[in-house]
C-alpha cells in the first residue's frame, strides 16, 4: 500500500462513518404543537428538501392542524403521505396546505413524501 492508498482508505472510511452518523444517528429538530384558543393544536412546517421541524409532538384526542408550506418547486416534495391517517395530499409550491387530523391513539406516526424519501414523524402523546 502506498501513501495515497492509505490516505484514500482512511478518508473513505471516515466519510462513510460520517454519512451513517449524520443521516441515521444525529439529533433531529423537534417541535411541539401550539394550542390555539379553540383547543386546536397548530404546527407550521416548512417543506424544502425535508420537513422542518421533522418531529412534531401533539396531544392525543385534540384536533391537529398542520400547515405545510412548500418552499420549493422540486418535484420530490410535491406529495405528502400520512398513511396512518389516510392522507395523500398534493402540496402546491410556495403555498400553505392545511392538513387536519384528530389523533386518537398515542404513538409515532411517520409522514413522508410520495416516494418515502423525505421523512417526518408525528408523535402523539
Amino acid at each position, binding site marked *: 500500500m502506498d501513501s495515497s492508498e492509505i490516505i484514500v482508505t482512511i478518508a473513505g472510511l471516515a466519510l462513510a462513518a460520517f454519512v451513517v452518523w449524520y443521516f441515521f444517528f444525529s439529533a433531529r429538530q423537534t417541535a411541539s404543537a401550539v394550542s390555539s384558543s379553540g*383547543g386546536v393544536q397548530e404546527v407550521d412546517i416548512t417543506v424544502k428538501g425535508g420537513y422542518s421541524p421533522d418531529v412534531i409532538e401533539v396531544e392525543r384526542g385534540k384536533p391537529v392542524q398542520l400547515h405545510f408550506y412548500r418552499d420549493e418547486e422540486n418535484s420530490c416534495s410535491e406529495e405528502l403521505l400520512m398513511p396512518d391517517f389516510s392522507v395523500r395530499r398534493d402540496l402546491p409550491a410556495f403555498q400553505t396546505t392545511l392538513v387536519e387530523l384528530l389523533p386518537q391513539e398515542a404513538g409515532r406516526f411517520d409522514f413522508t413524501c410520495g416516494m418515502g*424519501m423525505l421523512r417526518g414523524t408525528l408523535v402523539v402523546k
Partner: protein
Amino acid sequence: MSPSPENTETATLDIEGMTCASCAAAVEKSLSRAPGVQSALVNFATEKATVQYRPGQASPATLKEAVVNAGYGVAERAPDTSAADRQAEIDRQKALAYAKLKRRFWVAVGLAAVIMPLSMLMLWPAAMARVNMQWLNYGLLLLTLPVLLYSGREFYSSAWNGFRHRSANMDTLIAVGTGAAFLYSLAATVAPGFFVRHGLLPEVYYDTTATIIALILLGKVLELRAKTQTSAAIRSLMSLQAKTARLVRPGGQEVDVPIEQVQLGDVVLVRPGEKVATDGVVTDGQSAVDEAMLTGESLPVAKKAGDAVFGATLNKTGAFRFRVTKVGADTMLARIVKLVEDAQGSRAPIQRLADKVSAIFVPTVVVIAILTFVLWFDLAPVSTRLPLALTNFVAVLIIACPCALGLATPTAIMVSTGKGAEYGVLIRNAEALEKAHQVNTVLLDKTGTITRGEPAVTDFLPAPGHEAAPLLQLAAALERQSEHPLAEAVVRYADAQAAPALPAADFRAIEGKGAAATVDGRAVLIGNQRLLRDESVALSADLLQQAEQLLAQAKTVLYVAVAGQAVAVIGVADVVRETSKAAIQQLQALGIEVVMMTGDNARTAATVAAQVGIGRYFAEVLPGDKAAKVKELQAEGRTVAMVGDGINDAPALAQADIGLAMGGGTDVAMEAADITLMRSDLQGVVTAIALSRQTIRTIRQNLFFAFVYNTLGIPIAAGLLYPFFGWLLSPMLAAGAMALSSVSVLTNSLRLRSFSAKQ
C-alpha cells in the same frame, strides 16, 4: 335525510374561542335559548355549531349574537373552494412544472448531443493530432455548464436542502454522482499538469455528466406523465360535479344559480339531458336517470315522486323536480371522492418492507459507493486506479433507484381504487384491498344480497271459474290499507298489472292472521290458512293443491276469500336477483367457496341455495348469531369475506376478514364495510375480489422488479463482475437503466387501468 319539518332552516357556524368541552356546552345552551332556535348542536372537536331555526324568528345574525353573548366568537366562513377548483389549481401548477421539466430536458439533450461526438474525437488519433486538447476540454466545459446549472440545478438544490435536513433522496445520488464526475473533469481541464505529474492521464467526463443528467430528466418526464394518469380516475370523479342548478323559487319562477348557493330544502328542476345538480328526493315528475358514474350500473334507473336522486347523475328522458336533501361535502359524489381519496392515502401492509428499505436506502448506497471507490483505488493498477474508482463510484450512485421501490405499491393502489370506483366498488383502504385477495370463502347473507330483500308476488292463482283481474283489484283495494310487507307486495304486483284502484271500507287488521275489509259492497278477506279457518271459509281441493305446490317451493301463501268463499291463492317470495347465479358461478370459478346464511327455515334455504348453485348453507340463523357463523368458518382456517346489506349485519361484517356491504351507499354501510358496493348485485363481489387479486399481482411484480433491479444493479455497477468477466458498467448505461426502472414500475401499475370486471 327527511325534509326538515315545517319551514326550518339549518345554519352551520364556525365557533371561535372554545377551549374545553364545557365551553361547547355553554355555546350550545346560549344558542338553544335564543328565540326561534329549535335545536343547537355544538361540536367541540370541529368547532362547529349546527343550528336549526325558524327563519322568521331567527337569522344567522341573531344566532351570532347568541354566541357572542356567551362570550365566544363566530368566524366568517370563507366561501368554500370546491375540491374540483383546488384540483384544477394543482393541475395547473403541475402542467407548468411539466413544461419546465421538458424544457430542461431538451436543453440537456441538445447539449449532450454536441458534447458526446466532441468527446469521441479523443478516440480518433488522426483528429486528436489536429486539435488542441486543452482548448477542446475548455470547450466541453463551457457546453456542460448550462446542463449542470440550468437542466440539473434542481438535483443540486434538492440534494443540498435535503442534506441540511439530514435527509437524502434520489437527487442526492444524482447530485453526488454527476458532481464528482464534473469536479474531476474540471480539475483535469484547469490543472492537467498536476495529473501528468502524478502519472495520470488528464481525462475528462463531461459527456458522462451531461448524458446522465439528460437521461435522468428523460426518466422524470416519462414518470411525471405516467403519474398523472394514476390519479385520472379521481379527477374524472371530481369533474362530474354540476356547476349550476335550476332553482324553482316559491313564486314559481325558475332561475339558474351556482351550485354553491343551493341550500337544503330548495326545489330544483331537472330537464331531459341535464345533470342532476345535487342529492335530493323527487317531488314530482318522472324520468330515467343514468347513475353509471356513481354505481357502475349501466341501465338507467326509473325515478318517480319519493325516489332519491343523486348529484352528478344524468337525467335521460323526462323532466322532474326534486327537493334538495344534501349539498356540498354530504352528497353521495363528495363522499365517494372522499372515500377513494382516503383509500389512496392509506398504506398497504405489503409495502412495509419496501418502506423500511426506502428509509435507509440512499445513505446506504452512498456508503456502498464510497467503499467501491476505496476498493478500486486500493486494488486497481496505479495508472488506472483513479479513473476506475471514479467511474464505478459514479455508476453505483446513478444506478440505484429508490423511486422504483417507493412507487411500486402506491401507484398500483391508486390506479386500482380508482378503477374500483368506476365499477361502483368503493374500497375503504389499501389494507382491505390487500386482504381481499386472500379470500377463499364468501359468506352471503341471503336476504338483500342473493335476493332482492323484499317479498314479491310470484303467483296469483284464481280458483276455477274465477278471473284473475277483478279478484286482484279487490285484493289490492284491501291491501292498500295495510302496512304489512306482504300486503305491500300485493299492492306492487297490482300496480305493475295496472289494476284500477277501488275504495275499501271497514278495514281491520287481524293480528298474526291477515286483514279484512269491504270492497265494492263485498266482504274481502286476505290472510293465512288460520284466518280462513277462524272465519269458517272452506278451501276447495283445487286451491288446496295449488297452495301445497307453492309451499313446496318455499313460498309464503296468502289466501283470498270474497263473500265467505275462497277464490284465490297468492304465492309470495323474496325473489332471487337475476345476476346472483352468474356472479356466484364466477366466484366459484375463482376458486372461492360460496356459503349462504339465512334466518329462513331449512326448506326455503335449500330451495334458494339450489336455485343459485350454492352447496353449503346455514339456515335459521338468528340475527345475533351471524357473527358467530363467520367465526365458525374462520375456525375452519378460512379467510372469509362477508357480504351483507350493512344494516342488520354490522357485527358480522366486522368479524369477517373482509366485510362487503351492498347498501347502495347508505351511511351505515359505508361506515361498517371494508368495501362498499354501490350497485345492489353480487357482481360487485366478483369485481372486488378479482380487482384485488390483480392489484396484488401487480404490486408483487413491481416490488420484485424494484428489489431485483437494485440488488443486481448496484453490485454490477460496483464492478463485482470485473474480476470474472472483465465487465464494468458505464455510468451512462447506469443512468439509462435508472431512468427506465421507475417508468417500468409505473407503466406496470397503469396496466391495471385495463382491468375489466367481466373476466
